[in-house]
Each structure stands twice: as C-alpha cells, then as structure tokens.
C-alpha cells in the first residue's frame, strides 16, 4: 500500500494509538523506505504528544466535587435557565419548554394523540424490513395517497438540514380518523416519526413535550391539524426538528 491517503490514515492512527498490528507493520515498512515521510511523521507525533501532555489532568476529588454540585443543582436550576432562554427564542418552542414534561397525564385530545403517536412509533421503529408501507422513493404517490385519505393536503417535510431523511410513510387509524405517519432516519440509525391528522377543532396550541418509555413526543396543533413528533433524541435536537417541521407545514 503506497497510496498517499492510505498512508496518511495510518500515520494518524499510529499517532492516536488506534492502529492495528498489521497496519503498524504496513506503516513501518513504508516509513523505512521513505525517510522524508518518516521525518514528517516523527514531527507530527512529537507535536501531538506535546499537545496531549499540555492538557491539565484534574484531581479525582475535584471531579467528584463538580459532580456533587451538578447533582445538587440539576433539579433546581432548570426553571431559571428556561426563563432566561425564553427571552431569546421565538414564542413557539420557548413556550413549549415552559410546560412541564408530563407522562401523558392530561386527558386532552393533544395528549391522546401524543399517546397514540408514541404507541405507533414504538411499534414500527424496530421494523427492519417494513417500517413503512410506501417508501420514500415514491414520495409523490405517498403524499397524494395520504392527502386523499386524510381529506386535506399533507406533505412529508424535508428534514435534510437536520440530518434526517425520509424512509417513507403509512396510514393509521386514530379513533375514527385517518392519520398519516412519516418515518425518518439519520446516518446514526436514529429514527423519528411525524404523525399528522386533520379535522380536529380549529385551535392553535404550541409545543407540548411528553416523555415516556424511552421516547420524547412533541405535539402541537395548527388549525384543524394535529401533529406529533416522536423519537429517542434529546429535547434539543427534537425541539429544533419540530420547529423546522412546524415552519414547513404552515
């Protein structure tokens, strides 16, 4: 192997101590035959070691102390932080943050829909072969079909900016209403689902967060539409994704 890139990769792996024995042999062979590359490698290694050694090492007592402080203030500090951040962000998501995380306790229709969304996502997210009925390759067909069944135009939002791409969608019943489910996936294999149904009372409701059994559900209403986004990500990316979707579906 003399390809420049391949050697480069081996050099970095050697510097970081993440090189296998056979790779090490390959690298040593190459360095033996190329003194100028060896010089380069040695210099980078020396600098890397210097850099690593320059990062201070905290004492274990100091770390335990910091951890204890965090444990004491974790439940208390939160409302203060939220209040401060609310001033910075647009109404929607910040308002959502203000609502305490509930475990589907309120029996409103939003909460019922969130519960339904949670159940649907939990059921389909683990499906390797058939997570969806219609794949993203047939996006137009999927959107037309679901729009017809819901009785109003629905599009699958594009979440490229957030790292998620559409896998596809399916049709589900919610009570006596039709619900559309769109499932997305990122390169980590994390999956999130957006559920939408149409024909509720004409109301607006900002983001509500529900956490239960491994999933976070964010629900909101916009006129006759009701939406829930479900996934196992943190609030931070989920809230941003919900906001992104909200913007596209207005």
């Amino acid at each position: 192997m003399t390809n420049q890139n391949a050697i480069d990769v081996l050099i970095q792996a050697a510097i970081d101590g993440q090189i296998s024995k056979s790779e090490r042999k390959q690298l040593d062979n190459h360095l033996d035959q190329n003194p100028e590359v060896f010089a380069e490698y040695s210099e980078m290694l020396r600098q890397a070691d210097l850099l690593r050694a320059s990062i201070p090492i905290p004492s274990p007592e100091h770390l335990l102390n910091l951890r204890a402080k965090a444990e004491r203030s974790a439940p208390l500090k939160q409302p203060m932080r939220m209040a401060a951040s609310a001033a910075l962000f647009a109404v929607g998501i910040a308002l959502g943050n203000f609502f305490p995380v509930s475990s589907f306790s309120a029996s409103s229709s939003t909460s019922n829909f969130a519960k339904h969304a949670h159940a649907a996502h939990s059921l389909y997210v683990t499906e390797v072969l058939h997570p969806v009925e219609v794949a993203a390759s047939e996006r137009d067909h999927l959107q037309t079909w679901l729009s017809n069944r819901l009785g109003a135009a629905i599009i699958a939002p594009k979440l490229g900016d957030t790292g998620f791409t559409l896998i596809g969608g399916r049709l589900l019943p919610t009570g006596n209403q039709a619900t559309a489910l769109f499932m997305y996936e990122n390169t980590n294999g994390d999956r999130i689902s957006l559920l939408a149904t149409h024909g509720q009372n004409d109301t607006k409701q900002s983001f509500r967060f529900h956490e239960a059994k491994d999933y976070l559900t964010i629900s909101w209403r916009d006129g006759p539409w009701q939406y829930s986004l479900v996934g196992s990500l943190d609030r931070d990316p989920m809230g941003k994704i919900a906001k992104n979707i909200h913007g596209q579906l207005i």
Partner: protein
Amino acid sequence: MLKSFDTQLEDCLSDLWRYAWSLTRDRDAADDLLQDCLERALRKRSLWLPVRPLKPWLTTMMLNLYRDDWRRNNRHPLVDLEKAGDIPAPISSAEDRLELQAIWSNVAKLPQEQRDALLLVVSAGLSYAEAAKVLNIPRGTLMSRISRARRKLKSEIDASGLKKIRSIK
C-alpha cells in the same frame, strides 16, 4: 454487559473535563462547562438508552452546549495561553512552552470542523468510531480532517521559526 450510568459517568469525568479545558482553555471555564453538562445529563438521564455507551452521548452534549450556549453568549472569552500558568508542570522547558502556546493558538485558528475532529480524539479521548458518530460523519472523513489539522499545525510551526531555536540549541 455495559456498566451502569453512574459508573460510566465516573469513568469519563476526567476526559470530559479535559475536553472542556481544550474547548475553553481555562480551568474555571472548564469547571463551569463540565458542571453545566453534568446537570443537563442528569436531567436527561431518562433519555439515555442503556444499550449505548455513555461517554459519546455526554461528549456530544458538551460540544452542543459549548456551541449553542457558550460561544454564542461569549460567557468565557477564549483565554490566551500566554497568561495561563496553566500548562502542567511536566512540560517545563521554555522551548516547549513557547511551542505549545503557538500550537494552541494555531488550534484555535483551525477551521472548526478540523478542530472539532482533532479535539474529540486528542482531548476527549474518543475512538475514531465514537468521534465520527458525535460529528455525524463517516470515519474516513473524520480521519482526513484530523490529518489536515495536524499537517496545518506542523506547517505553521515550521514556518514560525520556533523549530530553528530548538535545533540551534
């Protein structure tokens, strides 16, 4: 079998602090950043999936926290290492200290994607696979960013004449 949340947390505290230090380059700021990160982690504990290792999850959290809250609000402006008597004692030679100042200030000047890749591996002590996952990029991309970062640092030092001092000596 994966270790418990608490045990894993304890195991990675030191690397997390070192990562916080390398982002902020200040001991007090590193304390604050780690504490913020731990508070967030403890609040979100229920969202952590026990089948996943904790360290990459926490490191991602710290990086996001730093990017979103810290740098934006400029809570702790980056300290120049010249002021910092912060370099640990084992590095005592004057040349090394000078060179380190230059290296760290060049690290600060690296394109963000290269700096992120380098520090996740060097100071947070993540494996290439873990660091790639934190940045949501393929491993090959991560490694080429690290390679470009190191080459850039080397050429800056080569150009600075610091090595000359060293070799004359």
